[in-house]
Every structure is written in structure tokens, then in C-alpha cells.
């Protein structure tokens, strides 16, 4: 396997882009990543996306994006793993370059969610669950996470308000990220009084959907000359699955695919959890933030909320998470989210994270969850 470098990154703001289409957003982020890398021809573009067929009635995104980026002729296809489609595209790009099959590969995550009404978008998102045995019962995506959270509160004795710090931290960081969807800080009082959307999950536990695209250009290390900026190496890349349906899990309160992926990625990178400087985790709902910390070895079982309550997750804490706002505040354009996490990790490692820049950012962990824990992609990036 060859060493692989992330040479360029690009992103659009996450918002309701009424005037921009899926192809516009993907093209903007992709071209920004190529410009950032100083590369004008690519061998391939892998497009991470979940809902284009259902919402925009558009598939065959590889050809569409390659053409609109002026890269007609390049290899291209869509990669889908529900809300983890972005990181799945990134992993596909990593494997293609690491194997020696391709040199310059662009991974673009893109989602256009505001073309349809709320109930249609809700129905489309539910397609990440088991259609025959979950969605048919009218359960929504937030509903599945509510089932997990209620049982978690019951099993480990936490109160709902113990999760507030996850959202407060995300909003504080999002307020300083010019690309974030939500840029207003929130307080404990806001969290406690937020509208209940699917008990015990309230509006401030849940990440907002949105339109957006983010991209990264990958090259083999031996084709990248040293420059003034630190080189960002992909030190670990791993993916694992769990049962598609929550009800088929051995333990619905443990993200075993996050655990397996993290273990593999740590081994590849030759690092321990204690050496990770920050963690871009998948806080689609606050319960997932807590369970991600546990699955990746940063907290004991059932003790994820403790890290938030102790302040360990803040920018000045032991393990900062969601440094640019996470899904909760930057926003969750589902198939693009994994690529936003990668872009934000690279920003931190390069020292280009603006007002959210960490004082120590040498090794970053990014983890993207598809479905309610079914497909999970874990990456470790290192500045050298």
C-alpha cells in the first residue's frame, strides 16, 4: 500500500441553497479542492451522496460531477452508505490511491435536501433503516435514535439534561465557523426548554438538515513535493458494519461498528486513543456523541455524558470534539457530512481552522455513521 496525502480541500457553506442545485454545490466544492491542491486534472471523482435519487430524481452522479467540473473522461461513480456516504467516498478514494491503481482522486460529498417538503425528506431519510421491518411501522430516523436514547437513560441512570453540554459545545464552535448552518450559541436554559420532537429527543439534541458539499483531493505521497504547509497523511482508514436494524443488534446501546473501525484505524496509524488530539464525531443526535466516545475508547460504557459535563470535549478540553460545530451546528447535509468532517480535520491539522483553531492539533480522528449505527467509517489523519 502507498502512503496517501490529502493535498486539497474545499467546501460550500451548509444552508438552504435555494438558488443552487446538487451539481452546482458538488462542482463548487470539488473545484475548490483542486485549486487548493494546485491540480488541474484528476483521474477519478467519487461522489458520496445518499438521497439524490429520491429527492432530486438524479442518479449517475459520477458522470454528472466529472462533466460539470470540466473533467469529462475521468472515472466517476456514486458511493452510498446512508449518512456515511461522504466518508465512504473518501475511503474509496483512499483505497484507489493506496493500491496504486489511480493517482489523483477527488472525493466529493454532496447533498441537496431542501427540494422537497418535510414529510417527504423524513420518508427519504427513513430509507437508511430496514424498510421491511423498521420503516414500515412509521418509525422515523429521529425516532430510532429516540428509542436508543430512552433505553440508554434507563440503563445508565442519566437525565436528559445531562446531554445538554454536547449541543452547547457544538453551537459555541459553530458560531465561529463561517460555513456553519447554525451560528448562534445556545445556553443550558435553551436546551432544557427546546421543543420536544420525539421524546426524549428535543430540537436541540438533533442536527439540522441542509444543502452542502465538501471535497478532498488525494494523491500518493511520492507524487507530492514538500511545501510550506504541513502534509496531511491518511494514517488510518477503516470501516465496519453492524445489523441494519436497531432491533437486530446484540446490544442496541453500543456502536460496535464504531468500536471495530476505531480499533482497526488505531492499529494502522500506530496510535492509542490517548494520542488523539481531537475527534470530529457524528453527533447527528446528542446520544450518538456519547455512544461514539464510548465505542472509540475515550469513555467507559455508559459514561459518555460525563466527558461533556466535565468540559473534556471543549476546544480547551482533553479531547475537543466537533471543533467547527459538528453535525449539530455546522449542519448535516447527510451524504456530504463525512467529507465536511474530513475537511475540518485537515483545517485543524494545517492550522487553518480560524477562530476554532486548537493549540495542539497533530493527530485527528473523524468518524461518520450511516443509519443508526449500521455503517461506520473511521479515519485518522496526521500532520507531518
Amino acid at each position: 500500500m502507498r502512503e496517501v496525502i490529502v493535498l486539497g480541500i474545499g467546501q460550500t457553506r451548509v444552508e438552504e441553497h435555494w438558488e443552487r442545485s446538487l451539481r452546482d454545490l458538488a462542482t463548487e466544492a470539488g473545484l475548490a479542492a483542486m485549486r487548493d491542491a494546485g491540480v488541474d486534472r484528476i483521474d477519478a471523482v467519487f461522489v458520496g451522496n445518499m438521497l439524490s435519487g429520491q429527492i432530486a430524481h438524479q442518479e449517475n452522479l459520477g458522470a454528472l460531477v466529472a462533466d460539470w467540473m470540466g473533467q469529462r473522461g475521468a472515472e466517476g461513480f456514486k458511493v452510498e452508505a446512508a449518512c456515511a456516504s461522504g466518508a465512504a467516498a473518501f475511503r474509496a478514494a483512499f483505497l484507489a490511491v493506496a493500491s496504486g491503481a489511480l493517482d489523483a482522486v477527488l472525493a466529493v460529498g454532496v447533498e441537496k435536501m431542501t427540494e422537497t417538503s418535510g414529510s417527504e425528506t423524513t420518508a427519504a431519510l427513513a430509507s437508511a433503516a430496514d424498510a421491511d421491518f423498521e420503516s414500515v411501522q412509521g418509525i422515523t430516523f429521529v425516532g430510532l435514535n429516540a428509542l436508543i436514547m430512552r433505553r440508554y437513560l434507563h440503563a445508565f441512570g442519566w437525565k436528559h439534561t445531562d446531554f445538554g453540554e454536547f449541543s452547547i459545545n457544538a453551537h459555541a464552535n459553530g458560531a465561529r465557523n463561517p460555513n456553519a448552518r447554525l451560528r448562534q450559541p445556545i445556553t443550558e436554559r435553551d436546551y432544557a426548554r427546546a421543543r420536544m420532537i420525539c421524546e426524549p429527543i428535543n430540537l436541540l439534541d438533533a442536527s439540522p438538515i441542509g444543502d452542502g458539499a465538501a471535497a478532498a483531493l488525494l494523491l500518493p505521497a511520492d507524487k507530492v513535493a514538500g511545501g510550506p504547509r504541513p502534509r496531511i497523511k491518511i494514517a488510518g482508514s477503516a470501516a465496519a458494519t453492524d445489523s441494519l436494524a436497531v432491533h437486530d443488534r446484540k446490544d442496541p446501546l453500543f456502536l460496535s461498528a464504531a468500536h471495530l473501525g476505531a480499533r482497526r484505524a488505531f492499529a494502522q496509524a500506530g496510535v492509542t486513543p490517548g494520542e488523539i488530539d481531537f475527534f470530529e464525531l457524528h453527533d447527528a443526535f446528542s446520544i450518538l456523541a456519547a455512544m461514539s466516545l464510548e465505542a472509540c475508547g475515550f469513555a467507559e460504557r455508559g459514561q459518555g455524558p460525563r466527558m461533556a459535563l466535565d468540559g473534556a470535549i471543549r476546544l480547551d478540553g482533553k479531547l475537543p470534539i466537533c471543533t467547527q460545530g459538528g453535525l449539530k451546528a455546522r449542519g448535516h447535509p447527510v451524504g456530504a457530512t463525512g467529507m465536511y468532517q474530513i475537511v475540518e480535520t485537515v483545517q485543524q491539522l494545517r492550522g487553518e481552522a480560524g477562530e476554532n483553531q486548537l493549540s495542539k492539533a497533530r493527530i485527528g480522528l473523524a468518524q461518520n455513521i450511516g443509519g443508526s449505527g449500521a455503517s461506520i467509517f473511521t479515519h485518522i489523519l496526521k500532520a507531518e
Partner: protein
Amino acid sequence: MDITRHWRLRRQRYALEGERCVHCREYIFPPRDICPHCGEEAGPLHTMSGQGEVYSFTVVHDPPTGYEAQAPYAVALVKLAEGPLITAQLTDVDAADIKIGMPVEMVTRRLRTDGPEGVIQYGYKFRPHLAVS
């Protein structure tokens, strides 16, 4: 819409037909080719009793397309007496009265309708267990 799919799943939707693994004796719902517990070939078929208890629950206020008429409705993870968890709506109960651990039993109810001309889909839901007097 989805007529063949519902016909294909009729024994699960109407009778909770699953399996009991001949190798490890664990119960499985719905039936599959490989036992998720021991990794051996699954089977033979086994019909679940329909008895269980609430493992977790929530109330859906913002329903997906096709479920608007029923909202708000309660959905639970039900732990069947045989062991498997199953996702199902709770019916014939006030949301305020639902508790983790509450005994429930399977009933057949309308799951969704696809407009005035469409198919009416029936399937399992669960209600509080009715004590036999």
C-alpha cells in the same frame, strides 16, 4: 404500491413467523439464511407467541409520508418472550401510560393506506397485555 412486497411478508406481518436455530436453539425474527447468533444455517421456521415487553419507546409527532393520518403514534422496541427485539407501533394505549418493562401482546392492525385507491397494508402492532380473567 409495494403489493408483492406485502404479500411476500404476509407470514411475518400477520403471524410473526420467525425461526428457531437448530444449532444454537436461539429464536430469530424475521427468518434469514444464516443464524446471526451462531453463524450456522438458520431454521426451521417457528411462529412467535406474540407476547413480549416494552424495551424502549417513543412517540412520533413528525411522521413520514403515508403515516400523517395516524400521528402522533407510539413506536416501541418490543422484547419478544422468545428473545428477539422487534420494532412495532403500540396501540390501544395512552402514551403517558407506556413504561419500559410493560407486558404487551401482538395484534393485527392497519399499518398504512396509500390514498383512497391504494392498498391498505395490515400488520403487527402491540397493545398492553390483556389479563385473562
